[in-house]
Structures are given as C-alpha cells and as structure tokens.
C-alpha cells in the first residue's frame, strides 16, 4: 500500500513538473502577456513610482532654472507646461509668466533669507548669466534665450530625466524633452535616438515619440525618406489614438502635418503638399496664411512640367 502511494506521488510530481515546463513558456508568450512588469522598481514601489517619476521630472525643470523654482508653498507652473518642456516644444516667452513667484519680501527674515538660495531667474546655458528682468507675461527677448549657442550646461538635466523615465516608462514627455536637449544643445544624436527608441519600446507606436524621431532623421541625419516614413506613421497613429478624443493633441497634429507638407514641398511633391496643407488649414488658427501657401503651391504645381 505504502509503495503504491509513493509511486502515485512520484508520478504526480513528474506530471506536475512536465506541465510546468509546458505551461510556463506558454504563459510567458501568450498574447497580451506583460513581461515588463517584473522589474524590481515596479514590484517595490507599485504605482507610487509614478509620483517619484513626476517629482524627478519636475526636478529637472528646477535644474533648468538653476534652482530658482517654486516650492509647494508657492504658485507652481502646470506640470504639463514646465518651462524645460516648453523650450523643447512650444514658445518660450509665454511660459515666463508665473516665474516671479517670490514677489516682494514679506518681512526682514524673508528679505535676508533670499541671499542664501537661488532667488533670481536664470536658465541653464545662459553663458552671460544674465537675469530675466522682464515682467510676468512679457515675452522674453534676451539673445541668450533665442540663440542656439550653448555651453553644454543642459546636460545637468539628464540624470533626473533618465531616472524619471526609469521609474515611469509610460511618461512620454520625459523621452521627448531629454531627446530634444540631447540632440539640439549637446550634439548627442545617437543617444537621443536610443532614448526615443527606449520610449517607443515602452509605448509602442506613440505618435509624439514618432514625430520626435522623425525630427532626428530630418534635422540631424538629413534622411528625408526615413523622416517621411516615420511622420506618416505618426500621422496614422494620431488618427488611431487621438482623433476620437475630446482633448486631442491638435498641436501635435498641426506639427506633423506642417512638417510633412514642408517636406513634400521641398521634395517638389506639390500635390501631396497641398493635401497636407488643406488638412492643416482645417485645424489651424492661421487659415489665411495657409490658404495663401496652398495657392502658391498650386501655382507651382501648374507650372511644374
């Protein structure tokens, strides 16, 4: 009897072991398996890692201002409109508003204490260390803000952006901002592309990452064909992911269309350029100037052999 039980147990163990060797690979490779969830940070921090990621992303912005940054007690810029990110994408001047968060000293302790922390508005890469003296809301006209020359100080943002991306790989802005500074101010095009590709691995087919990758191909690698392909994919993904949303990223759509139209125009594919311009006209606030460009392009199309 005891022999039978032992034999049965051994047989069951063997079956269980065999099943494990079959089922585990199947489980790992099944459709929709999330194999990226097993890293130590995700297990240890859970969803709180997103909070830390946001903190480090904001810290990068504080570094961009050389420490002149509002605390939790001061009025803060919106998280999605950080100055560092604004420089990477949208205009700069309008973001300056709200950076005079200190105001006038409230008492002698406040006034005296301002000697001991960064209390003047400066940016990384301001070689002349000039301070922004303009009033809130006034566009910034300093040459050091508009010029492309850099001392490479912007590299100081990178550790915090990399840590932020490590903690929250789904945060797309982190890759875009880091890539922008890497390729424009630090001349590290390969690293920028690698980081964007890392972002694309975490967020497959994301339209903003594809758009930024296209800019690298066109502006840095001068590879028009790959830029066009990537932007066309970005446009397709925008239609798939964003178009149906109530708060769709129209600015990105305009940028993709604008870049594609410009690219086709320069490549003398006027009919395709016109198509992109027409699509752009529908969403752009500058309809008249786009209509004028369409007419010019149509004239060129007619004149073309």
């Amino acid at each position, binding site marked *: 009897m005891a022999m039978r039980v032992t034999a049965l147990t051994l047989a069951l163990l063997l079956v269980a072991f065999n099943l494990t060797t079959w089922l585990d690979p199947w489980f790992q490779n099944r459709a929709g398996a999330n194999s990226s969830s097993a890293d130590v940070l995700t297990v240890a921090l859970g969803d709180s890692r997103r909070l830390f990621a946001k903190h480090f992303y904001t810290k990068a912005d504080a*570094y961009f201002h*050389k*420490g002149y940054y509002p*605390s939790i*007690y*001061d009025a803060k810029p919106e998280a999605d409109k950080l100055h560092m990110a604004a420089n990477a994408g949208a205009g700069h001047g309008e973001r300056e508003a709200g950076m005079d968060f200190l105001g006038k000293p*409230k*008492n002698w*302790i*406040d006034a*005296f*204490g301002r*000697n*001991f*922390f*960064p209390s003047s508005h400066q940016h990384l890469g301001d070689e002349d*260390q000039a301070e922004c003296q303009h009033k809130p809301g006034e566009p910034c006209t300093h040459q050091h803000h508009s010029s492309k020359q850099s001392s*490479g100080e912007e*590299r*100081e943002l*990178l*550790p*915090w952006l*990399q840590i932020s991306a490590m903690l929250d790989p789904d945060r797309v802005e982190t890759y875009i901002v*880091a890539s922008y500074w*890497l390729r424009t101010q*630090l001349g*590290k095009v390969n*690293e920028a592309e690698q*980081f964007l590709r890392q972002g694309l691995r975490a967020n497959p087919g994301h339209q903003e990452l594809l758009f930024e990758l296209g800019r690298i191909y066109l502006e840095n690698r001068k590879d028009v064909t790959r830029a066009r392909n990537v932007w066309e994919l970005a446009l397709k993904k925008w239609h798939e992911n964003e178009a149906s949303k109530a708060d769709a990223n129209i600015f990105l759509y305009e940028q993709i269309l604008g870049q594609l139209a410009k690219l086709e125009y320069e490549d003398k594919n006027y009919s395709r350029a016109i198509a992109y311009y027409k699509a752009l006209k529908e969403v752009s606030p500058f309809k008249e100037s786009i209509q004028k460009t369409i007419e010019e392009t149509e004239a060129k199309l007619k004149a073309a052999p």
Partner: protein
Amino acid sequence: MSATRPGKASLDFRREIAPVGAGSSSSGAAGAMKVAVNNIHAIGGVVIKELCRRKDFYVLFVLTALITLIMGSVNFFNEDKIVRYLKEICLFLIWMSSLVIAITTTARQIPAEKENRTLFPLLAKPVTRNQLVLGKCLGCWLACGLTLLVFYTFFAVVSGAREHHWPILNYFQAGMMHWFTLAIVIAMALIGSIVFAAPSSNSTITFVVVMGILLVGRHLDEVALQLTEPGQSVVYAVYFLIPHLEWAFDVRELIVHDRDLVSWAAWIGACAYAVVYAALLLTGACLLFRRKALN
C-alpha cells in the same frame, strides 16, 4: 584675618588640585578667566578625543563617500561632465551626517557623565557647572568643525575632479555657515540633554525640530497667512522666534547650481545671527543646568 585665610587657602587648594589651569601665577579676575578658559578647553578636548575614538564619524564618512562614488560612477547618456546631481547628493549626505554627529554626540555628553559617575568628581574639581556646559558645547562644536573639514574636502575633491574648477570661496562660505549653524543645533541638543531624561529621546526630538526648521522654516510666514486667528499669530510668532537654520541649508542650492557668492555682508550677518542664537541657547542651558538636581 582669620576670616579671610580659610577662603584664600581654599582658593589656593582648589588651584593646586585643578587638573587644568593649575600653576597659573596670575591672580584676580584675569587669572580666574584663564582658569575658566583652560577648563572649558580641557573639557572640549576630551569631547574631541571621544569623537575620534568612536566609530560614528568614520561610518558616516565611509557611507557618504561610498554613496557619492557609486552615484558618480553611473553613466547618463555617455556624458561624463554631469556633476550637479552628484554635488546635490553629496551635500545632502554631508548635512545629514553632520546633523547626526552633532546631535548624537551632544545629546550623550551630560547623561554619559552621570551614568559613568564622573560628573560629581568633575564638578568637585574647580570646574563650575557653567564651564562644564560651555566645555561640552565647545568640544562638540570643534569636533563638528573637524568632521566638516573632512567632509567638505572630500566634496571639493569629488566635484573638482568632475567639473575641473574649484570655487573654494563658495565652499568656504557654505562650510562656515554650516559650522556656525551646527553651533545652534549643538546648543539645542545640550538644552535637551538637561531637560529630557534619556539621550535617545533628546536626539529624536532635536532631530525632528531641526528637520522641521530646515524643511518649513522659510515658509512659515506663508503658512501663517493662510490661517485664521489665533493660529496665524501663533505661527507668525514661531516664524520670528525659531533660529532660521535653513539659511545655511539652502546655501547648498547655490553651490549645486554654480550661483554667485553670497554677499559677504549677508554671510557675516548670518554667522553673527547663528552666534547670537547659540549664545542665547547656551545661556539657557547654563541656567537650567545650574538649577538641575544631579542626584
């Protein structure tokens, strides 16, 4: 004459057995002052020797160095000139280590003398209670100065090796403000060691108070504005009463972000502010210790 002789004899006797300051040929107030200074200095020397013997400083320094060097070896986008994150981490660790050393070293001074039963022999010698308190404070402060010297030298070497420039004056300003601020912390811990029963409770409470000041001290006026009376007045009063330790703590930011030097007038003002606060707290400690029953 007979009434004066015993007093003189007593004084001479005390001088003869004095472990320090003995053999002084001077007399009167200047002599007494010299003896007092020598006593304070001798007690301070013992504290410094104690810090050298204990492992606290070595452990904290090795930890700071290890964490800094590990963080410095991380590769970010093949960019080897990135240094500010490293400076921030290193300075933060230096601050935390120095606070731990200052508070724990100070907090155990008087309780340890009681526990080892060396307090009574010490006070039986010509060492007054005030001299004991001042000696302990001076010793802890000088010991912290020595540790800061080592820490800031390490910091200067690490950051200089990475960024290839040496803003020594900035480091000097930050280090000295740090040291003067620690004088306030030491005086607070010394009062705590007289008031609270155990060094552990004193250390914890002092650490919480110091961290509270460092984190929210600068913003208490803004917090007060959002409160209703009487909370507003209370918080405002606290804002004006607390020693603003965060001034020295915030200088880290200037160092990290390569900002300009603090104006020398403001720097001297901040150091003087720290000296005044430390003196006030020490006076309080002396008064409390004078009235404290030791048995």
